[in-house]
């Protein structure tokens, strides 16, 4: 989780009628806390994470802790009180509202065909997902839970050696539509492929030497690896209704040779909650 955590009391003292957690995730197991209750909880416009768990102090259940999940299609409207002066049993921690992503994020994820060889192996970059959650302090007149569309622009690829693959991982959580456009302005052809990855838990031993952890994700092909000639374009459209729902879009770039310059391969990605 990011430090310092945003202070919900500061929002009250500052006269805001909402408290917003808008932060990039640091790793799996991120959990955020709020001293304030709310009259509604909803995803914020900038969230990449689609499903968020909200835990709260509930005197009506034996464990004193109850939870609910919000998503782009379902906000929670109703009084949800925080009880920081009372403690959750057993752990003996204040009865704050706890907010954690239900979707998985793991920056140690590696695609199934990833080359781990140090020095000449593949390179991977992640677009860190954003968690954006809003607690409303007063009754909102209406809630629009839909997230904003997002656009990503990249102008370069990274390579450690000739023929190694550069992997780019973009958050896909719950998005219904995505558009991928590539233009090859390098001085050689590049093979580009897109897969979807759904993270899971693995009990298998490491698959290869140098493998920090075995690949436990389910992967599905969105666009088979295609050679893009010099000065040519490649476009692809993703629809969740036909291609399934994924945590990540994983894009692979394999140049024919080590590029003399890493700049010149343009990638433009648009993701949306609308099934356009």
């Amino acid at each position, binding site marked *: 989780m990011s430090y310092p955590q945003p202070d919900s009391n500061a929002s*009250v003292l500052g006269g805001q*009628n909402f408290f917003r957690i808008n932060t990039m995730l640091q790793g799996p197991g991120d959990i955020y806390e709020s001293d304030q*209750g709310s009259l509604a909880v909803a995803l914020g416009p900038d969230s990449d994470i689609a499903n968020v768990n909200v835990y709260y102090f509930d005197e009506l259940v034996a464990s004193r802790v109850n939870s609910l999940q919000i998503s782009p299609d379902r906000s929670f409207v109703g009084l949800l*009180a*925080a009880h920081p002066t009372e403690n959750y049993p057993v752990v003996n921690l204040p009865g704050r509202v706890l907010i954690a992503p239900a979707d998985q994020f793991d920056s140690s994820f590696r695609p199934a065909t990833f080359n781990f060889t140090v020095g000449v192996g593949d390179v991977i970059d992640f677009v860190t997902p954003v968690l954006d959650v809003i607690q409303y302090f*007063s*009754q909102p007149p209406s809630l629009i839970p839909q997230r904003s569309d997002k656009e990503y622009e990249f102008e370069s690829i990274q390579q450690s050696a000739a023929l190694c693959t550069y992997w780019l991982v973009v958050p896909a959580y719950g998005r219904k539509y995505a558009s991928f456009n590539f233009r090859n302005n390098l001085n050689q052809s590049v093979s580009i492929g897109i897969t979807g990855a759904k993270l899971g838990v693995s009990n298998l031993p490491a698959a290869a030497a140098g493998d920090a952890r075995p690949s436990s994700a389910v992967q599905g092909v969105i666009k088979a690896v295609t050679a893009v000639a010099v000065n040519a374009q490649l476009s692809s459209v993703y629809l969740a209704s036909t291609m399934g729902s994924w945590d990540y879009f994983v894009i692979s770039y394999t140049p024919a040779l080590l590029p003399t310059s890493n700049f010149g391969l343009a990638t433009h990605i648009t993701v949306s909650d609308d099934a356009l």
Partner: protein
Amino acid sequence: MAMKPGNLISRIASELTAKNKEQSRSTPTANSGAPAAARRVESVKQLQADAYDYFTVPGPTALLYSAERYAMVTLTLRTPGPVAVGTRANLTPVNSGKGVRLVTDEPFVIKLDQGTRLYVVSGAVSRVSVVIDLIPATSDIGLERQVVALLTELNSNIKAMRSTR
């Protein structure tokens, strides 16, 4: 029998001053005492409404307002709370029912007698809008009623004098 206007006005002045000892003591003279206009302003200030935001702190019951005069207090919770208010000195825990739970954005109005204290307890840092309207005391109202009665009597005397001419 109709009273002469000059006698009647003297009676109004003497009764007004005699009924209120404090006012009688501060009646301005040629050499001392505050001007009457200034005293009126002071009197109005004492009855002026007050409005402010109160920020609660989670924990034990706290004093929100002590009514030195009759007052009508309007409280509006601006955040989710929970916040409870009441006239008992111990309202904890907040959901115990010893006080009234405030509902967000719904004004809660309570009339406080002179000398009554209003307490608050909360489970989270909360913002409460407080509006205090002071209500004139019975003695103030009695004085005003006297003035009205005497003026009415003066009016009827004048009419009676005119009719006898």
